[in-house]
């Protein structure tokens, strides 16, 4: 008897981890960008599987469709010729591999060691896919009304009903400021020296 949740979890989790490792292992930056796109798209599948349908859709639209296209544009605008694949010394690889391996061992031992996180009592009875109707509660939560907490009887837990209106506004203004600042930083600057043919050509640094 195959558990379909487990099968689809493997189907999304294995590409996520493999493409994340490929991002680290690859030296070519264009290949890194492609592996990152594949890894984050598989993460969106994991979100759907955990019952977060709206978050998974946003992961696909904002991350895979927006942020990574921005990254690929950055790669195309900056990387050319010999700097496509910068060599990394093996001493650096050794140190980073040791530190990363130690960190991974610590994290995995913490994750596996806690009893409440490894128990499967609920997962055997309830399919997680049925949880995925979160769009309207998320929208109301961003407006400051927690419709999922209305039936909360415990008055100490009702403080969570305050909603997310203020963080939503802060993030909105933050995004506006950041995009204006990014456009200002990345604008085509006028060169003082008129000898360069194109205004966007990079300056040659004097050694």
């Amino acid at each position, binding site marked *: 008897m195959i558990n379909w949740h487990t099968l689809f979890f493997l189907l999304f989790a294995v590409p996520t981890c493999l493409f994340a490792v490929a991002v680290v292992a690859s030296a070519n930056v264009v290949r890194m960008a492609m592996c990152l796109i594949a890894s984050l798209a598989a993460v969106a599948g994991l979100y759907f599987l955990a019952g977060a349908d709206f978050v998974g859709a946003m992961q696909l639209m904002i991350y895979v469709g927006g942020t990574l296209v921005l990254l690929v544009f950055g790669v195309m605008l900056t990387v050319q010729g010999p700097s496509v694949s910068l060599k990394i010394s093996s001493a650096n690889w050794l140190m980073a591999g040791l530190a990363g391996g130690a960190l991974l061992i610590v994290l995995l031992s913490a994750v596996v060691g806690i009893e409440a996180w490894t128990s499967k009592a609920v997962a055997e009875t309830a399919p997680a896919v049925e949880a995925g109707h979160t769009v309207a509660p998320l929208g109301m939560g961003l407006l400051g009304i927690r419709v999922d907490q209305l039936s909360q009887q415990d008055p100490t837990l009702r403080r969570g009903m305050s909603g997310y209106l203020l963080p939503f506004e802060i993030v909105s203004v933050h995004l506006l400021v950041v995009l204006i600042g990014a456009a200002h930083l990345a604008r085509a600057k006028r060169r003082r020296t008129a000898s360069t043919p194109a205004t966007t050509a990079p*300056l040659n640094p004097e050694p």
Partner: protein
Amino acid sequence: MSFLSFLSQPVSLSHYLIVGAVLFVCGIVCMATKRNAIGVLMGVELVLNGAAVNFVAFSSPFLRADSQLSLGLDGHLITLFIIVLAAAEAAVALAIALCYYNTHATIDVDEGDELKG
């Protein structure tokens, strides 16, 4: 056979957390080793996604036995904020990388050592 027996078992919370930990460590190693500024940025994206996977896993009420302790909608909202802030961070970091490239004619972060004492 062990693989088939794994397939018949349901997934618990720690399986999702393992994926998050792998993404996090890959991002850390990517940030530490890459000499390309865009590569460092990709490491940051991996770290943020590892954290977001953990938040989504903790917010699902079906992955753990004590389901009343799950984050619920809070985890989803925090994950949405993570995604939006990652987009903002990528925009600013790319603008900085473009400025760096315009002044140094390279994207290698080891070349930016003017502030060395």
